[in-house]
């Protein structure tokens, strides 16, 4: 086999033979790939490996950061006053937010979430009289298009809650509940628009019918305030922002804070008046009313604080354990015993 004289040079240059890979065909044309760092896979790179020197400090640092964060969150959450249904005295001087809560109400069901027409809610005239097919079966009623169409709008929460304070004299004082500023700014000012402006809504909605389960048509949601009527009614907007989970709460009203020294809700007896319109028994749901103050982290939710404390402690503990293991086993991890 090895019978012919081989004229190859050391680095594989051939004379006259067509080449493949690293050999040159002739002096003029070379198929040799460039000797650049990119093509020869020699790019400068950072090559991290998990050594004890990086992992253990990282664990300790994470532990030391998470635990204080967790404590801070937990303490903040504890300071938030939240009570449901029965009132207890409070000394807060900040805004108090009133929520209604529903349980076992699947606003996140796929068919339910799809059942709306954002173009119609944006005030698009053609969508007003011809809503999208997604709204079925809440699309047409009495031969006319429903405005607003869809199941989400149809199931609007329509209980009214009133809060009274019985002071020392025995008089029943109505606590003023602010109904604006409860929806997202972007929702109220961009996403939801009344067709043809905010004035003369009755005319604008002519030719449409109200949703099947509503008592009043959409232009009667708040006739006293044209900035809160029709599609841009804030209760309506809040409801249209579907909840992610079957148990949720939605902002209903805000109780404005008074002077700095006066508590927002002074101690005493309170009476909550509920116009019970919204039927929840049919799907085994429950309703509740929540009054809550707010902090920088939102409502009262101790979970995040507890979770941070837990994870921080686990991290710290793992750091200690790994440190012990590292000390015991690191003498074995000598590079000299690489088999070769």
């Amino acid at each position, binding site marked *: 086999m090895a019978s012919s004289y081989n004229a190859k040079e050391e680095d594989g240059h051939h004379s006259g033979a067509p080449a493949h890979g690293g*050999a040159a065909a002739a002096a003029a044309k070379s198929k040799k790939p460039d000797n650049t760092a990119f093509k020869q896979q020699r790019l400068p790179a950072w*090559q991290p490996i998990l050594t004890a020197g990086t992992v253990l400090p990282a664990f300790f640092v*994470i532990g030391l950061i998470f635990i204080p964060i967790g404590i801070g969150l937990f303490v903040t959450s504890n300071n938030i006053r939240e009570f449901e249904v029965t009132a207890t005295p409070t000394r807060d001087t900040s805004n108090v937010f009133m929520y209604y809560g529903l349980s076992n109400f699947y606003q996140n069901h796929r068919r339910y*979430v799809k059942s709306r027409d*954002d173009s119609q809610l944006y005030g698009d005239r053609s969508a007003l009289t011809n809503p999208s097919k997604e709204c079925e079966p809440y699309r047409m009623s009495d031969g006319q298009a429903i405005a607003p169409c869809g199941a989400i709008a149809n199931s609007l929460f329509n209980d009214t809650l009133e809060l009274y304070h019985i002071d020392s004299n025995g008089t029943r004082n109505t606590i003023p509940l602010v109904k604006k500023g409860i929806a997202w700014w972007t929702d109220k000012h961009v996403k939801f628009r009344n067709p043809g402006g905010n004035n003369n809504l009755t005319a604008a909605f002519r030719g449409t019918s109200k949703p099947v389960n509503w008592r009043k048509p959409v232009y009667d949601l708040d006739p006293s305030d044209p900035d809160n009527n029709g599609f841009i009614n804030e209760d309506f907007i809040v409801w249209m922002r579907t909840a992610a989970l079957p*148990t949720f709460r939605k902002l209903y009203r805000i109780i404005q804070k008074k002077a700095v020294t006066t508590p927002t809700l002074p101690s005493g007896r309170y009476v909550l008046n509920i116009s019970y319109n919204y039927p929840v028994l049919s799907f085994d749901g429950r309703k509740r009313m929540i009054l809550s103050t707010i902090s920088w982290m*939102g409502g009262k939710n101790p979970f995040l604080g507890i*979770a941070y404390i837990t994870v921080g402690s686990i991290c710290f503990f793992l750091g200690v354990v790994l440190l012990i293991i590292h000390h015991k086993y690191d003498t074995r*991890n000598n590079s000299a015993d690489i088999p070769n």
Partner: protein
Amino acid sequence: MKDVDGNHPIRPRATPVLQEFAGEGLRTLALAYKDLDEDYFHQWKRRHHEASTALEDREGRLDQLYEEVEKDLLLLGATAIEDKLQDGVPQTIEQLSKADIKIWVLTGDKQETAENIGYSCNLLQEEMNEIFTVSGNSPDAVREELRNARNAMKPDAVDSVFPSERSLVKGPKVLMDEEVNGEHGLVINGHSLAYALEHGMELEFLRTACMCKAVICCRVTPLQKAQVVELVKKYKRAVTLAIGDGANDVSMIKAAHIGVGISGQEGMQAVLSSDYSFAQFRFLQRLLLVHGRWSYLRMCKFLRYFFYKNFTFTFVHFWYGFFCGFSAQTVYDEWFITLYNLMYTALPVLGMGLFDQDVNDAWSFQHPRLYVPGQLNLYFSKRAFFKCALHSCYSSLVLFFIPYAAVQDTVRDDGRDVADYQSFALLTQTCLLFAVCIQLGLEMSYWTAVNTIFVLGSLTVYFAVTFTMYSNGMFLVLPSAFPFIGTGRNSLNQPNIWLTILLTSTLCVLPVVTYRFLLIQLCPTINDKVMFKVRQTKASPPPPTRRARIRRTSSRRSGYAFSHAQGYGDLVTSGWFLRRPAAPRPLGPAHAGRATTGFSPMGRSAGYSPTGRPQNAKAPGVEVTSLQMYRTISDAAL
């Protein structure tokens, strides 16, 4: 043979010249001639024709006729041809053997030639316990020789070919590797191989051959080469690679799993039928130990990570099903689902699959054992896939339930809603992206600038695209397509949202880091050890300089003459040529062989003597010549 010129006899001058040529490793040829009478020739031709068409004893009669005419030739002179092994062949074979690759040589050369080549390129070694030769002329003789060899290697071996023959597993039987004490070599002739490859004896042959460290088959026909490769493919759970450079290697190259052709003087047939081709045998080392290894590593990391990110992405929906009435509502924004694999995680994983390396090429050569994980299929197997799925399951649990619990009954810092579907979707998808990006960071071990740009760029692109799609502008263009308007602005400015993202990402990644760190500490793999060593050295080591190669311009080297059965076999075995009178020889480029004028205590390449002369005996005044390397066509069955 008579001398041409009666006055000046050639033979006394020819003989030492031939010996000198052979001593330098050239293939010698003596030329002689004879005038034939025309009538005699015609008569001889007629008899030759009769003999070649005879029905009985054709071989014998032809031999007789040849003997008759090849008499009384007149010696003309002697010629010598050099044929040499390519550079780097012994080192390559040594490295590949260290990488647990079994190397077999299938050559058409004679047995002595093949053996010499085997010794000269490090395949057969002095330290080997025994070299078995199988050259029987009948099936029984061959079987006997194979059995003897096997019994010598492993005296207590079970006689039946498959040790676990009683298993009821259907399907192709696989010959398992067997442990033997010591290193052995096997040399088998072509005609014996013909019997050994028959159906009744092939397993016997394969078993014996696989117990040996090196196998050399000589006088092999091209068809037999392919048959040997197919035999290994069929009965062993091994990947085969065939490398050759001539047209007679084409069948073997095509039969193997991977065919490598060496392009060169012999033409392009081998190249055209191969999967890979290059110009020199030594490039095989780089192909396997560097590129093959990197390719396997990259492929496996890519696959594992790809499955992980998609399983995690999908399992979250499974958990959400429990909370959305099993209505198949997606947790994420529809645009996110579209763009997740297309834009947000495509480039980083592609970058990892293109650029990742565990150690650079110099280190790969220094530690051929790094090749072993690929052979054992460690990085991506059913077990690895199952672990990946388990990891995804855990990640998806964290990625759903932490946001779920954090968002439960939570509101913004101005009392408004943040537990709505759209904010929840944004929260979970951001958590997911951070978690998979950090996981990618843990998988990658080679952060080039390109990779860094891809990873950080993908995160940036995610935020950019998300904010664009949730902006007023896009909503005004197509209200029904971009319903998420305002979500980014209203939820991502809440500190508790970011705290949730931080917690989720950390919790996803923590077990992985712990697990990997524990593995490195308690049972480090060869990769871990080498990477640790690299880090300690903090620079790429120089290529091993244990044998400095000098660029030779002269082609005269010492070695063996090997081409004829008669003639100089005695010369070869006498070892006469290993000792030369200390004639002054110019050093430098004309110096034969290695830079070492002495001999290196390790390795084959300097001053090896196949005749068994001890290397350490350096007689004064004798210059040890080093070994010739002959180019050969070899078959490397992995």
